[in-house]
């Protein structure tokens, strides 16, 4: 990969120092989290935060997190994975087939509908959260997984991205050729178009996945039952309990720290591996 450079650009010391400095800034809280996931709650208070204590107990902490309250943490993680996967799969499929229609077909009100979708990208999701909560209450969906999944399958940005992606990457000739070979529309969509557009699909999937994984306000409003909550809500509950311990309750500090570390590992790994797709998809979305 050749950089957009002027002739032979020499590495700059100043720029390198700056990049290392920013890397340290990015790593600082993560490093803190890893170090402190090895400490007992008293050591969290008694020892210097940027270094290990004399009696590391990472394994014990992990066991505590996984077994506390009958293993509720694993249940929260499972909820998060299930809500995020279902939302992302739904959002990707809906945006894909609609994006294909917008990219390759003519129909009435096409432009008006597309502009409506573009306008919807601008609606702030959190301003929608309270009205969505009201809608879900009237549909009697509060405290069900659907309260998270159904609102999350609408991805106006995904539709926009996939329309552009299919438009620019899937030639009409390939679709025509598949038709001449006798493939039905479902077959064309499912194998020919989906295969060529797979980087775009991966991008939309990933963005929706992260969107649901990150969402805090909506689950806070619609999932009050602890066993249904995603891990983000669970961790903040533990955090609140450790800050305001009621009499007789345990202090949960080390659970919050170790639980936070465990909760980010799957997503960070997924991202490092899927960054390639995200980049190619974002390029299309960004450059137009």
């Amino acid at each position, binding site marked *: *990969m050749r*950089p*957009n450079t*002027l002739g032979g650009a020499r*590495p*700059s010391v100043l720029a390198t120092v700056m*990049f290392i400095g*920013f*890397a340290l800034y*990015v790593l600082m*809280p*993560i490093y*803190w989290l890893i170090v*402190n996931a090895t400490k007992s709650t008293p050591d969290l208070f008694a020892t210097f*935060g940027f270094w290990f204590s004399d009696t590391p107990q990472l394994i014990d902490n992990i066991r505590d997190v996984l077994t506390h309250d009958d293993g509720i943490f694993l249940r929260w993680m499972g909820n998060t994975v299930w809500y995020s996967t279902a939302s992302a799969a739904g959002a990707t499929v809906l945006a894909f087939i*609609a994006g294909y*229609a917008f990219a*390759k*077909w*003519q*129909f*009435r009100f096409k432009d008006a*509908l597309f502009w409506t*979708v573009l306008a*919807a990208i*601008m*609606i*702030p*999701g*959190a*301003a*929608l959260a*309270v*009205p*969505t*909560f*009201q809608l879900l209450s009237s549909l009697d969906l509060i405290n069900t997984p659907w309260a998270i999944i*159904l*609102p999350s399958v*609408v991805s106006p940005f995904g*539709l926009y991205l996939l329309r552009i992606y299919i438009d620019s990457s899937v030639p009409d000739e390939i679709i025509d050729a598949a*038709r001449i070979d006798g493939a039905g529309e479902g077959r064309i969509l499912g194998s020919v178009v989906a295969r060529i557009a797979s980087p775009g699909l991966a991008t939309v999937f990933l963005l929706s996945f992260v969107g649901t*994984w*990150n969402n*805090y*306000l909506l689950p806070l409003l619609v999932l009050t039952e602890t066993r249904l909550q995603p891990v983000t809500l669970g*961790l*903040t509950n533990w955090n609140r309990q450790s800050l305001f311990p009621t009499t007789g309750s345990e202090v949960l500090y080390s659970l*919050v*720290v170790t639980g*936070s570390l465990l909760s*980010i590992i799957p997503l960070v790994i997924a*991202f*490092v591996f899927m*960054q390639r797709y*995200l980049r190619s998809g*974002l*390029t299309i979305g*960004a*450059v137009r």
Partner: protein
Amino acid sequence: MTTSATVDTSPRPSARDAGPDRRRKRRAGWWLPYVLIAPFFTAFLVFTVGPLLLALYNSFFRTRLIGGTSFVWFQNYADVFTDEKFWEGFLRILGYGAIFTPLTIALSLFLALVVDAGVVRRSGFYRMLYFVPYAIPAVVATLMWGFLYGPTISPLTDIASAIGLRGFNLLDSSVVLFSIGNIGIWTFTGYNILVFYAALRSIPHEVYEAAVLDGANRWRIGWSIKIPLIKPVLTMVAIFSIIGTVQLFTEPMVLQPLAPRSLPANYTPNMYAYSLTATGQQLNYVSALSFVLGAIVVVLSVIYLRITNRREAD
């Protein structure tokens, strides 16, 4: 069910209206695109348009303990406009956005330009590393930074008191806005670098070869050639930042138990809306409030687009 509803809106086969489009001759029927878009638009109608309409409807009513629900016209909106608690949070957000949106974008654009200029070795490694925070949910990011900010177990506080800084508290009401902004910079810089870098890579070499031959230096090329060429991307990122800023919720909400006095329940408009919803008494009022907030976002985005377009015309 929805399919037929969509088709009903076009009594005649639509392909006939599409003009001389060769796709018309294709084997599948004219109704096919409607079937393809039906699932998306059904969900869109129910879960995007639906809440909006419901909120609009609710915002015109008021429920009183005595007298039940009654139609009050724009009374809720009038109350929002005179609600000091709402505007206090809104002004705070405006100040926050005015500081941190340009700062985050300038920082990531600068770093992306440096990567693009090829003066840092192994820049791919840095880009990947900087991107890691984006994979960390805002809740967890805030918990981590909250531990670093909080006065009790933070190593930063230990360091500050070791060098003689007394009363060092990053959650104090005078600085907590910056502490929140720091979490935003930490989370989004890497993502923005990725987007800007992708856009910079798509500029063909020929565009600035002439400038290179004329002896223009890197900064000049970056400032006068590259940045103007990726302006649509800058605009997109800026608008997403504005939308994100107005919605600020998770970070102050998660920090709140650490510093209840610095972060009152109306610290941001969304926290205010949430606190009113959580107490459950004022859903009609919150509907009006959500509408005002959403409208402000749209207006801000349009103003931003106007300003950038006018600058281009000059």
